[in-house]
């Protein structure tokens, strides 16, 4: 049986751990607030952009052409952008996205494609470097304050590399943020952009939206509007993914640290009970010794 001092030390160390996990929980819940706020206030732009894009597509029909839309003839080189957290201690947040992305990448490889990975966040890089996947490069230590610039840089880079034929398809892997308790690993095609999704959506919502089929005056024409809309839409998509990754990470960390704090409290109360029992036993033993010592005299 553990000695009194052992138990006391153990209690002390668990208390320290609890203090840390509690602090981490508080920090991430504050960050989560900020992150969800940012994601929420970014939504109107995204929605309005989508609506505008829909209108232009509806007016321009299938005749619209743009480098970002062109289906490449050879589809061998594939770029996968994966967004994870920089740090751990956030439950299975990174594990889920890494595992899911790895499955998708293996599918692409099995289809005879050459996959290169661009990592946003340390944890993705760690995962894929260890399993000897080709990592084109990694952007780490992301600060939410720089998300607009990061999204900008990535979208410019993707457009440039597409123009230079460095890759023919690009995918984005990130955790879509649904709520504090649920994030969904998502693997979607970034480039070439798919417009038929927008078409379908407009067909579904045209009833309540109404505006999609009305006669807009386009200034300048639909295809030049398209040329401006598409890069903007790409950047917005990336920006949104960054925001959702941040929100998801903080949400996961908050719940994980909350659970850890609770576990630590349980452990402390169990240990305290054990400690008290051991102390009681020691006192009883001492008493018996004194009493039997006195009797012997």
């Amino acid at each position, binding site marked *: 049986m553990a000695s009194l001092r052992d138990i006391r030390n153990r209690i002390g160390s668990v208390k320290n751990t609890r203090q840390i996990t509690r602090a981490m929980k508080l920090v991430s819940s504050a960050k989560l607030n900020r992150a969800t706020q*940012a994601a929420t*206030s*970014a939504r*109107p*732009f995204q929605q*309005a*952009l989508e*609506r*505008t894009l829909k*209108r*232009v597509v509806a007016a321009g029909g299938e005749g619209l052409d743009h480098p970002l839309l062109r289906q490449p003839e050879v589809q061998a080189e594939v770029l996968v952008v994966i967004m994870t957290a920089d740090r751990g201690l956030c439950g299975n947040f990174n594990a889920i996205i890494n595992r899911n992305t790895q499955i998708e990448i293996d599918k692409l490889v099995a289809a005879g494609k050459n996959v290169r990975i661009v990592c946003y966040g340390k944890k993705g890089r760690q995962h894929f470097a260890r399993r000897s996947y080709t990592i084109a490069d990694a952007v780490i230590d992301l600060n939410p304050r720089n998300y*607009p610039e990061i999204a900008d840089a990535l979208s*410019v880079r993707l*457009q*440039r590399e597409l*123009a230079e034929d460095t890759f023919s398809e690009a995918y984005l892997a990130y955790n879509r943020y649904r709520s504090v308790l649920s994030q969904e690993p998502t693997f979607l095609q970034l480039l070439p952009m798919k417009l038929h999704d927008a078409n379908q959506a407009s067909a579904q919502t045209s009833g309540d939206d109404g*505006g999609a089929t*009305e*006669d*807009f*005056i*386009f*200034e*300048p024409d639909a295809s*030049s*509007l398209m040329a*401006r*809309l598409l890069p*903007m839409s790409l*950047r*917005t998509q990336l*920006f949104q993914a960054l925001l959702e990754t941040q929100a998801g990470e903080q949400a996961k960390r908050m719940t994980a640290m909350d659970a850890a704090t609770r576990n630590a409290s349980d452990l402390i109360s169990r240990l305290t009970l054990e400690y008290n029992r051991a102390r009681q036993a020691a006192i009883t033993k001492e008493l018996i010794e004194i009493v039997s010592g006195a009797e012997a005299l």
Partner: protein
Amino acid sequence: MSLSVQIVTPAAVAWQGTVDEVQAPGLNGEFGALEGHALLLSATRAGVVTLHQKGGLTRFLVGRGFAEVSSSSVTLLVDLCEPHSAVDKAAAAKALADATNRLTAAAPDSVEWLEAQAAVELATARIDA
């Protein structure tokens, strides 16, 4: 006579409210919109948006984007939006020089070139604001 106006940037809704008239920098020149305007979807340059209200004028410097005009509302989708009074012309002059350098260095029609062009446009708009 009123138009509901929203100026939306990627980060947030920068301004919304009701105005009498909007003037925005369209790609093909400045345009004004009053209530009852025809449906219009226009690309906009970086420049100054002027909102006419009862109390006077409110002016914003906006980045590139789009304007969606209907008979009762105007939505401006722009890269950035800052109050006219917050425009830093000295910084803009520096940015203009820098962007011009990048523009001359980049190959025409490359992504960098387009990006530098946008930066030149924004810096010029700030200086002219």
